C-alpha cells in the first residue's frame, strides 16, 4: 500500500498519572504518526503505556499540561473543547477493547447501534439512528451475527462479543479504528478470526491502530512500532 499523509499523530506526548500525592509517569514524550489507510500495531509489554497512548489518540484522555500534541486531520485535539472531542470519539474513531465493554442491558443490535444514537437532536437524531440501525444490521450480518440480534451480551461467546464490539466501533463509519488488545481475552483460533475480520476492514480502506503485547498478533499489521518505557521506538517493521 502506498504511503500517505498521517491522519492521526502524537507529538512528544507525556502523561503522568497521580496516585495520591505520587505522580507516576507513563508516557515520556511518545511520538507516533498514523498514516491514512495503514494498520499500525503498537507493541509493548504490560505497563509500557500502550493503552494510555491509545486513549490519548482516541480523545478519551488528555496529555499532561504542555505534555505534547495530538493531531487528527490537521486539528489539535488536546486543545479542542469537550463537545468537539465527544463528537470526535463518536464519529471519527471507533474503539475496540480487550474486554469487549458491551452494555449488558442492551441487545446485540442495540449495542451495535449505540454510537448512532449519540449526538443530534430531533429529526437529525432519528435519521442518524435509522442510518446506524441499517449499518449495524449490515455489519452484524457480515459478521455472521444476524441470528443473534436480540440476544444479550451474556448469551454470547467471547468471540461473538468481540465481533459485536467491532460492529459498534464501525457503525458510524469512523476514519480510524483503535483496538486495545482485541484478541487478548480470546483463545488463539477465535483471536485469529477476529484478526481476519479486522484485516478485511483494513483491506476495505480503514485506518487501524492496534496495541498488543503479542508479537504474533502485531505481525498481522502493516507496520509495527514498539513502546518502551514511555517512548515509541520505530525499530521493527512488518508488512502483510
Amino acid at each position: 500500500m502506498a504511503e500517505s499523509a498521517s491522519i492521526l499523530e502524537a507529538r512528544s506526548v507525556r502523561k503522568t498519572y497521580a496516585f495520591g500525592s505520587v505522580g507516576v509517569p507513563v508516557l515520556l514524550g511518545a511520538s507516533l504518526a498514523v498514516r491514512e489507510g495503514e494498520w499500525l500495531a503498537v507493541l509493548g509489554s504490560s505497563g509500557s503505556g500502550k493503552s494510555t497512548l491509545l486513549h490519548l489518540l482516541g480523545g478519551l484522555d488528555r496529555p499532561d499540561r504542555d505534555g505534547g500534541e495530538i493531531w487528527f486531520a490537521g486539528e489539535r485535539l488536546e486543545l479542542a473543547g469537550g463537545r468537539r472531542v465527544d463528537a470526535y470519539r463518536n464519529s471519527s474513531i471507533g474503539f475496540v477493547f480487550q474486554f469487549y465493554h458491551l452494555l449488558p442491558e442492551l441487545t446485540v443490535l442495540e449495542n451495535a447501534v449505540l454510537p448512532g444514537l449519540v449526538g443530534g437532536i430531533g429529526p437529525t437524531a432519528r435519521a442518524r439512528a435509522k442510518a446506524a440501525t441499517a449499518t449495524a444490521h449490515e455489519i452484524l450480518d457480515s459478521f455472521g451475527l444476524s441470528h443473534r440480534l436480540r440476544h444479550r451480551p451474556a448469551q454470547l461467546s467471547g468471540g461473538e462479543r468481540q465481533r459485536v464490539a467491532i460492529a459498534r466501533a464501525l457503525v458510524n463509519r469512523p476514519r480510524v479504528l483503535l483496538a486495545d488488545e482485541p484478541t487478548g481475552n480470546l483463545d488463539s483460533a477465535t483471536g485469529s478470526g477476529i484478526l481476519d475480520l479486522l484485516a478485511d476492514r483494513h483491506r476495505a480502506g480503514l485506518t487501524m491502530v492496534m496495541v498488543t503485547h503479542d508479537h504474533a498478533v502485531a505481525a498481522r499489521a502493516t507496520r509495527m512500532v514498539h513502546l518502551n518505557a514511555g517512548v515509541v521506538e520505530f525499530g521493527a517493521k512488518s508488512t502483510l
Partner: protein
Amino acid sequence: MYAALLSNRYLTSRLIPFIAIGAVGLCVALVVTVVSVMSGFLDMLKDSGRRIVGDVIVSTGLGGLPYYEELLADLRALPVVQGATPLIDTIGLLRMPYPHGPTKEVAQVQVWAIDPASLVKVTDFAEDLYWRPASGDAANALHPDDPRRSLDPEIVRDGETLTQSATGRSGIALGMHVSIGNARQADGSYLPRYGWFMPGHDVTLTVVPVSLQGRISEPREQIFPVVNEVQTGVYEVDRNRVFIPLSDGQRLLRLDEAPLYDLSAAPDENGNYPVIGRTPARVTKLLVRGTPGVHANDLRAEVERVYDAFTARIKKDGARTARAPEFVSVLTWEQQLRDLITPVEKEREMMRVLFSLIYIVCAGLILSIFWAIVVEKVRDIGILRSVGASRLGVMWIFLRYGLVIGLAGSAVGIALAWIIVRNINAIHQAIGSDAPSIMWMGAFALAAVSFVGLVRAALRRRILPMLLWLLATFVLGLVGALLFFHKGTLIWDPSVYYFSVIPDQVDWTTAWTTALGGVLFSVIGAAIPAAKAADIDPVEALHYG
C-alpha cells in the same frame, strides 16, 4: 436517544427502581389521603356552619334591635336576599326530666328564640330535625329499638312550628346531644339511652333578662314540652343549642313589646305611671341568606348599606320610642364561625407541612438508590463516553431515570390515594368489623405454604430463599393471628367524632401539587448521583471492576 433507551432499560431490568416507585407512590398517597380527608372535614364543617347561620349575621348587644320587622322587610326587598329571619341568642339553664342525685339534671344551654316560618328560608332548620317517622322498608331497615319505627307523624310538624299540636303549648327542640338520652351508633343513627327518649318530656328553661342599662333582672322560667331534636352536623351546636319560639323568648327576656311609662309624672291611685307609648319588640340577631350565586361578602356589604339607611330613618323619625343601635356587627358566616373553622384550617395546613417532610425521605431514598446504581454502572458510563456521549448526556440518563421514577411513583400514589379515599368508609367499616373467617384461614394457609418453602430451602441449604420463606411464614402467620383475634376496631368512632361518615372526595389541588412535589424531589434526589456519573473519568471507568 440513547438516554431514553438506557433509562428505560435500567428501569425495567431490575427490581430496585420498582421499590423506588413504590416508595414515592406511598409517600404521595399518604400526603394526598391525609390532606384530602382533612379538607373534606373542613368542607363539611364549613357547609354545616353555613347551613346553620345563613350567609350574613347581624348581631346587636343584649339590649336588642328594635323595629327589626322593618329592617327585615327592607332586607327581604333586596334582590340579593333569599330570606331573612329574626332571633334572640342568649344563654339559659335547662332542667331535664331525668334525675341527677336527689334533684333533676340541669344543663347550661345556648337558647335560640326563633321564628320557625322564616328561619327555614335562611337555614336548614327543618331538615335538621332528626326525629321523623319511618315506614315500610325504611322502617324495617332500622334497629328494632330505633324510635323512628313508631313515631307520631305530628312530631315533624311540631318541630317545624315549635308547638305541641296535641296541647297547643309552645315547644322546645333540643340539640341532639343536649340530653343524655341519645346514644350515637356506628352508622351515625341514634338509639334512646337509659330509656330517655326526650320528645314528649317536659323541660324547664330558665333565662335571665338584662335591661338596656345592663342590669340583671329576676330570672324567669318556663316549662316547655320537647317537640323534636335537632342534628345540625356540628357537635358544638348540637351539644349546647335549644330552640324555642321567638315570642316566648322575647317575653322571657323582656324583649317583647311593652307599655312605655312616664316616670316623671305622678302615679295614679293604683301606683301606675301614665302610659305614653309602647316600646317595640326586639331581637338580638338577624340571619340573612343570599340568593344562589351571591357571594357572602357582597351580601354583607348590601346588608350594611340597608342597615345604615334603616338607622338613619329611625333616627329622623321623632315619633319613635326607641332608637336603633348605630353600631351592630355584620359578619359573613365564615367570619362568624371563624373560631370553629380556623383551628381546623390550621390543623390541615400543619398536617400538610408535616407530611410534606416526607418529600425529603423521598429524595433521600432516590439519592441512595441512584448512588448505588451509578456505582454499579461506572463501566457503562466509560463505554458511553468512549462512543461519544457527553458528560451532560450521561447526567441526563440518570436525571431522566429519576424523572420517570417520580412520574410513575406519583401516578401510583395518586391512584392509590384515590382508591383509599373513595373507599375509606368501606375500609373503615371493614376494620371496624370482625375479620371474615376466609381471611384468617387464607393467611394461615399461605403461611403453611411458606413454611413448606422454608423447609425445602433448608434442605437445599440455600440461605437467601430460607430467609425469604422464613419472613413470609412469619408475616403471613402474624397477619393470620391478627385477623383471627381481630374483633373490630372502630378507629373513627362517630360517637366521639361528630361526622358519621369520613369524607371520601380526593382534594385534587393537593393531589396534583403533591404529585409535582414527588416528581421534583425524585429529580432532586437523582441529581447528585447523576452529577457524580457525569464527573466519572472515562478511562478510570473503563478499567473499573
